[in-house]
C-alpha cells in the first residue's frame, strides 16, 4: 500500500474519533476515560501485589523468585498465545474475505501477496489489542520496579511481540484453511463460536481450579511452594515457555535473556512474513471462489411457512433477524459459561447460615438482572437500528410502529425473562432461602427480565443509528451506555426487594427503617415506567421523525 493510502486511513480514523457529532465524541471520551481507569486500576493492583510478594518471599527462603516468576509468566504468555490465536482466527476471516474494501483493493495494480500481507498486518493489530492492553501496564510496572528498567521492559515486550506474531500467523493460516472448507460467512460464525467456546472453557477451567484457595494462607503457601520451589522444565518447542524464560532472565537483570527473546521475535516475524508469501495463492483462489460464490446459488429452495397473521409474520421476521446474527451462537456460548461459573460459585457457599443465604439470594437476583441488562444492550438496544437503511422501506409500509415495537420486545423479552428466571431459580435451589425471599426473588427476576429489554428496545428506537456498521457499534453508543446504566440501577434495586439483610444494611447506612413492601412497590413502579415510557415515546418518534432519505 502506498503512503497516500496509509495517510487517508489514518485521517479517516482520526475523523471518526475527533470530528463526529457531539454524541459520538461523548462516547469516544467515555471510552477513553474507561480505558484510563482500567489501566490505572491494573497498575495500582500490580504494584500492590509486587510489594506484598516481595515482603512475603523474604520470609520464604525455599521459594526461588525466578522459578515462581517464570511459571507465572508462562501462564500469562500461554494465555496471550491462546487469545491471539482465537482473536486472529475470527478477525482474519473478516479482514481477508468479508471486508468491503477488498473489492476495491483487489483491482489496484500491486501484487496480491502485498494485499494479503496488508490484511494480515491489520488482523494482527486488531487481534493483539486485548493482550497488549492487559500486558503493557504490567510491563511498565515491572520495568519501574527493576534496577535496569529499559532491559526489563525490553525483556518483557520483545518475547510478547514474538508470541503475538506466532499466534497471529497461526490464526491467519487457520482462517485461510477454514474458508477453503466452508464459505466465509459460515466460517466467521464457526470461528466466533470456537473463540467463545475456547474462552468459556478457559473461564470454567480456571474456576474449577478453585482460585479461592489462595485466600486461605495455608493453601496459598502450598500452591506458591509448588510453583516456586522446583525449577520449571525445559521449554522444548513451547513458545510461551521460551518467552517466559527469556522474560524472567531479563526482568531479573540478566541481559543474556534478550538473546532468546530476540530469537523468538525474529522467528515470529519470519513466520508472519512466511504466511502471506506461501499462502497468497490459496487466498486468491479462495477469495475468487467466495467473491463469485456470493451471488451463486446454493441450490436450496425453502418456502417457509405461509403468512397467516400479521403478528405471526412480524414475530418470525424479528426472530430471523435476531437468530441469524453472526455473533448470536458465540454469545450464547459465553452466556452458558457465565451460568456455569455462577452456579459453581453458589455451590461453594455454606448452606447452614440463613443470613448468608438471604444475602446471596438478593445478590444472585441482581446478578441475573445485570446479565439480562448486558444481553439487552447487545440484542435489544440495537433492535430498531439493525433494520439499517431498510428502515426507509419499513417507514413507507402501512404498519403501526407501536405494534412492531411490541413484537421486537416480545422476541427479546421472553428469552431474557427465561434467562433471569433460570439463573435466579437455579441459585435459589442451591440456597433454599425462606419462602417470602424465594417468591420475591422469582417475581423480581420475572419483572426485571421483561422490563429491561423493553427499556433497551425503547431507548434504542428513540436514538436509532441506521448507518452503524454493526449491532455492537450501536450498543456501545452513548445511548446504549445510558440504557445500561438505567437497567443496572433496576438490577441493583432488585437486590433490596429480595434480601432482608441488604435492606437492613442500607437502612443502617441511611439511618432509616426500610420496610420491604414499599421497596417492592417502588421496584414494580420503576420497572413499569422503565418499560412503558421509552416504548411509548419511541413509537411516537418512529411514526413522525424524519428518516434521512438519501
Amino acid at each position: 500500500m502506498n503512503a497516500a493510502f496509509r495517510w487517508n486511513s489514518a485521517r479517516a480514523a482520526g475523523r471518526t474519533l475527533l470530528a463526529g457529532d457531539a454524541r459520538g465524541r461523548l462516547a469516544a471520551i467515555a471510552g477513553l476515560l474507561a480505558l484510563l481507569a482500567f489501566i490505572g486500576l491494573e497498575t495500582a493492583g500490580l504494584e500492590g501485589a509486587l510489594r506484598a510478594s516481595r515482603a512475603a518471599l523474604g520470609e520464604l527462603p525455599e521459594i526461588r523468585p525466578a522459578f515462581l516468576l517464570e511459571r507465572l509468566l508462562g501462564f500469562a504468555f500461554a494465555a496471550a498465545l491462546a487469545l491471539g490465536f482465537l482473536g486472529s482466527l475470527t478477525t482474519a476471516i473478516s479482514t481477508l474475505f468479508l471486508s468491503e474494501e477488498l473489492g476495491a483493493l483487489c483491482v489496484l495494480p500491486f501484487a496480491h501477496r502485498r494485499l494479503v500481507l496488508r490484511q494480515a498486518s491489520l488482523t494482527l493489530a486488531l487481534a493483539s489489542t486485548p493482550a497488549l492492553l492487559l500486558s503493557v501496564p504490567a510491563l511498565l510496572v515491572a520495568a519501574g520496579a527493576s534496577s535496569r528498567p529499559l532491559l526489563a521492559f525490553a525483556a518483557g515486550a520483545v518475547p510478547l511481540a514474538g508470541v503475538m506474531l506466532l499466534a497471529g500467523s497461526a490464526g491467519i493460516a487457520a482462517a485461510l484453511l477454514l474458508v477453503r472448507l466452508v464459505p466465509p460467512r459460515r466460517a466467521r460464525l464457526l470461528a466466533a463460536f470456537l473463540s467463545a467456546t475456547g474462552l468459556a472453557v478457559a473461564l470454567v477451567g480456571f474456576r474449577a481450579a478453585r482460585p479461592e484457595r489462595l485466600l486461605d494462607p495455608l493453601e496459598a503457601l502450598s500452591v506458591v511452594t509448588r510453583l516456586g520451589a522446583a525449577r520449571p522444565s525445559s521449554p522444548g518447542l513451547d513458545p510461551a515457555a521460551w518467552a517466559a524464560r527469556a522474560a524472567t532472565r531479563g526482568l531479573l537483570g540478566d541481559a543474556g535473556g534478550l538473546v532468546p527473546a530476540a530469537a523468538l521475535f525474529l522467528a515470529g516475524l519470519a513466520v508472519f512474513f512466511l504466511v502471506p508469501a506461501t499462502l497468497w495463492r490459496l487466498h486468491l483462489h479462495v477469495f475468487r471462489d467466495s467473491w463469485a460464490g456470493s451471488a451463486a446459488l446454493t441450490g436450496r429452495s425453502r418456502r417457509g411457512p405461509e403468512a397467516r397473521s400479521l403478528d405471526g409474520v412480524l414475530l418470525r421476521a424479528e426472530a430471523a433477524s435476531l437468530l441469524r446474527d453472526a455473533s448470536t451462537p458465540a454469545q450464547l456460548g459465553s452466556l452458558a459459561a457465565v451460568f456455569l461459573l455462577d452456579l459453581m460459585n453458589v455451590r461453594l457457599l455454606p448452606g447452614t447460615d440463613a443470613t448468608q443465604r438471604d444475602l446471596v439470594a438478593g445478590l444472585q437476583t441482581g446478578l441475573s438482572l445485570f446479565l439480562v441488562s448486558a444481553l439487552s444492550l447487545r440484542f435489544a438496544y440495537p433492535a430498531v437500528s439493525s433494520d439499517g437503511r431498510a428502515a426507509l422501506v419499513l417507514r413507507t409500509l402501512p404498519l403501526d410502529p407501536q405494534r412492531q415495537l411490541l413484537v421486537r420486545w416480545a422476541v427479546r423479552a421472553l428469552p431474557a425473562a427465561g434467562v433471569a428466571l433460570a439463573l435466579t431459580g437455579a441459585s435459589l435451589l442451591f440456597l433454599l432461602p425462606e419462602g417470602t425471599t424465594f417468591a420475591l426473588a422469582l417475581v423480581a427476576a420475572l419483572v426485571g427480565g421483561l422490563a429491561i429489554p423493553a427499556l433497551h428496545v425503547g431507548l434504542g428506537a428513540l436514538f436509532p443509528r441506521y448507518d452503524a456498521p454493526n449491532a455492537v457499534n450501536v450498543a456501545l453508543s452513548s445511548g446504549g451506555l445510558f440504557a445500561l446504566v438505567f437497567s443496572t440501577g433496576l438490577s441493583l434495586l432488585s437486590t433490596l426487594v429480595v434480601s432482608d439483610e441488604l435492606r437492613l444494611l442500607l437502612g443502617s447506612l441511611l439511618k432509616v427503617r426500610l420496610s420491604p413492601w414499599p421497596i417492592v412497590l417502588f421496584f414494580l413502579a420503576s420497572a413499569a415506567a422503565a418499560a412503558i415510557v421509552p416504548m411509548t415515546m419511541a413509537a411516537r418518534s418512529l411514526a413522525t421523525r424524519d428518516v434521512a432519505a438519501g
Partner: protein
Amino acid sequence: MVSTRDGTATPSIRFDGATKNYGQKTALASLTLAVPAGAVFALVGPNGAGKTTAIGLLTGLLAPTAGRTFVCGIDVARDPVRAKARLGFVPDRPYLWPKWTPRETLRFVGATFGGRGVELEKRIDAELVAFELMELSSERNETLSHGTRQRVALAQAFLHDPSVLVLDEPMVGLDPLAQRGLSERLRAHAAKGAAVLLTTHQLALAEEIATIAGLLVEGRLVARGSPRNLETASGRGGALSDVFFDLAGGSPKP
C-alpha cells in the same frame, strides 16, 4: 383520477405547497403538483435539486416544514397508515433486511398490506417469476448482487398492486433487459389506472416512458408538461433534455 363521493376527480398524487427546510437551507420550496391516475410522472433535476426530498415527503419518510402531500386524496401526515396502504415505494438504493431471504422479504411486506396464506404466496411467486428471482428466493439478501437486490426491491413495491407507485432512480443496477422489462411493467401498471412517480437522471428514459415530466432545480419546480414539450414558468417550451440543459446548468458536462 380517483372519484370522490361528490363526483369530482381527485389526483392520485398531490403536493400542496410542500416545503422542506433543513435549518436555513430550503431543500424543497412550496412544491405544488398533481399526478392523475394512469399517468407516469418523471421528476428530473440535477443532483441536490430536491427530488429525493419530494419523494420523502410523499412517502412519509420526511415531515414537511409547510404544506401537505396526499396519496389518493389521503393526507400523508394526518393518516399515514391509510395513505401508505395505497403506496408502493422503491428507494434510491435497494435497502433490504440483510438476514432475510427475498421470499421472506416479500412475505413480510405482503403481510403488512393485508396479504395472507395461499393467496399471498401465489402473488409472491408471480413477482419472483416476473423479476427472475425464483432461483434466488432462498438466498439471504446480504449475499445478493446490487442488481438482484434492486429486483427484490422492485418486486416488493409491485407486490400489492399499489394505486400509487413511487420509484427513486429505479433503473440503477439493472441490466438493459431488466430495464426494458421494468419500463414495460411501469407503463402497464399505469394503464391499469395507477399513478407512477419516478425520479431519474436518464433523460432518454424519462422521454420514453413518462406521460408527464417536471424539472426541479434548487428545490423549485421550474418546468412541467409533456416530456416532448416541457413548459417553463416564463412560457417557453421545448423537449425535456433541451429545457434541462438550459435551466439546470448550461452546456452538458463531459
